[in-house]
């Protein structure tokens, strides 16, 4: 049986709840204001990324870094707030993080091949 109390139509910050015995269970209800705030931040970042694309910041590489950074910040906001990871258990953090970490392994080690090829084997590039 659930231990939350039912508060219809209330914009509560926390549903009253005794601590669950299972690690990481959360009854936290994120308030609407937080969502709206996060959305505003995402809008600002969207504008920022468009503007940054039009300006030449360090050529292709610089543009890539800027765009990727902004996209990552947007994604982090979506993950932490919209996907509730900020209020979730450590297990959720680990799985969410592991997915991107593994993607990182795929990218880094494959690029280690491709980025070093022009130097060692230009004919194979």
């Amino acid at each position: 049986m659930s231990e939350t109390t039912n508060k219809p139509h209330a914009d509560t910050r926390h549903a009253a709840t005794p601590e669950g015995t299972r690690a990481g269970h959360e009854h936290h209800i994120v308030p609407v204001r937080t969502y709206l705030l996060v959305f505003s931040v995402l809008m600002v970042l969207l504008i920022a990324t468009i503007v940054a694309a039009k300006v030449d910041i360090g050529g292709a590489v610089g543009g890539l870094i800027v765009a990727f950074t902004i996209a990552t910040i947007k994604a982090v906001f979506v993950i932490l707030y919209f996907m509730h990871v900020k209020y979730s258990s450590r297990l959720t953090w680990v799985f969410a993080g592991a997915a991107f970490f593994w993607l990182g392994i795929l990218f880094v080690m494959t690029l280690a091949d491709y980025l070093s090829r022009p130097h060692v084997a230009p004919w194979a590039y």
Partner: protein
Amino acid sequence: MTAINYPESAPVVEENYLNVSYDVKSWLLTLDHKRIGVLYMITVTLFFFLGGFAAIMLRLELATPKADLMQTEMYNRMFTMHGVLMVFFFLIPAIPSVLGNFLIPIMVGAKDMAFPRINLLSWYLYMTGGTIVLVSIIFGGLDTGWTFYTPYSSQFAIGNVILALVGIFINGFGSIFTGLNIIVTVHKMRAPGLTWGRLPLFVWANYATSLIMVLGTPVVAITLGLVVVERLWGVGIFDYRLGGDPILFQHLFWFYSHPAVYIMVLPAMGVISELIACFSRRRIFGYEFVAISSLAIAFVGFLVWGHHMFVSGQSIYGAMIFSFLSFFVAIPSAVKVFNWTATLYKGSIVWSTPMMYALGFIGLFTVGGLTGLFCASLGTNIHIHDTYFIIAHFHYIMVGGTIMGYLGGIHFWWPKITGRLYNETAGKVSAVIVFLGFNLTFFPQFILGYVGMPRRYHFYPEEFQLLNVMSSAGATILGFGYLMPLVYLIWSLRHGKIAGPNPWQATGLEWETSSPPPPENFLEKPVVNHEAYNYHEQEPTPN
């Protein structure tokens, strides 16, 4: 040495998962993880023998130096069929989907897997994928090899490449869902008192395997999808003439397929831990090390895939990094072997059939693992790449390792799954035949590869014939060794002694419920308050 005394007979619990209902719908629409495990057991066996048939055909052809049994096309299709069926439809699902599905919920004290319907879906995805691949093989086949290297597979191969890839893709999702189910079950459904430190090592191993399944399989899925796109659309993703890079395929393919070999061997290692503990009557030496080594293998296994590509044209810096890391991945496996050996030392060894498979595993896996170091080293790799040395190396791991682990596990848990005891003498004889047949088949292949016989060739210089004949003779013996369990295990279903709840006097929650278990696994939810292999707390069994 102590012997196991079997109970003469023991009454069977009235209602168990087998007899609760007999009609076909209750099997094909079951949500019971035990029945799903049995469904998998029947179907992986089918695919094993189909893949084995292809192997027999290959070895028959290779008994003579000339190409006299099959045309080149047919031979290429045979080894493709052998690889595809064995890798994707036997080795990867065998232990997790058969033994894992059956045992993990019971071992953690739960009533079922976390997601029973997804579990059933996994089996249907497996069957759908398998059927599609079989159709693609029967109606023309494909000759790309199970590795589907581009640009041959994406541009030039004639045959049912697209169909086969679709089948493998679908099967991959079955694999992903099985892994997902195991992960969530182990995290969220353990019985009270069952901390991670008290879990059986079989659970640890399958948990680590499931992590690999979830993280690796999607990459090969998208890769095979891109090959289909290239074939259908005629574009140049992997076509060097259109700006594509064939090696990109290899990177993406092996990112999964190397960890896939750990999907194949890790669960077998989990089985071996259970068998060694039970048949030495001791707790596993260094439990924590063995548990953590499973996670280490899962992680480091993702960092080494480039060792399949040393001669393909990747940069030498990439190759050096991959070679270095490949030496590392041997370490956690070695940790396991040391700990098993330490467990055996001064244990009370019981020479049961499962134990014979387990001991065989340790020896053969060690050989396979050590020869892996030859492969990982850049210099020697150049010499042995694409030769029979590589074939021998991976068969020592996959057959000498995984299949021995699977058979050991099937024999060990057969009484639990079926409620019957098989004939021990038949079991031991088969185990010996398998061991001898295996070594006769594959040891000569190390030598053949070292002296230069390439793989995937159906003709060879005459001086290689003796070793090839030895290998083919071994394959026949091995095949016979595999057929025997089929006979006596099925025979036991009707005529075997009733097993009773714990014929091996093993530890573990699965042995504390009836054989076969009731539909909900336990009549009352268990609570665990001791470590995993508390054999030392048992009274010594009188001889």
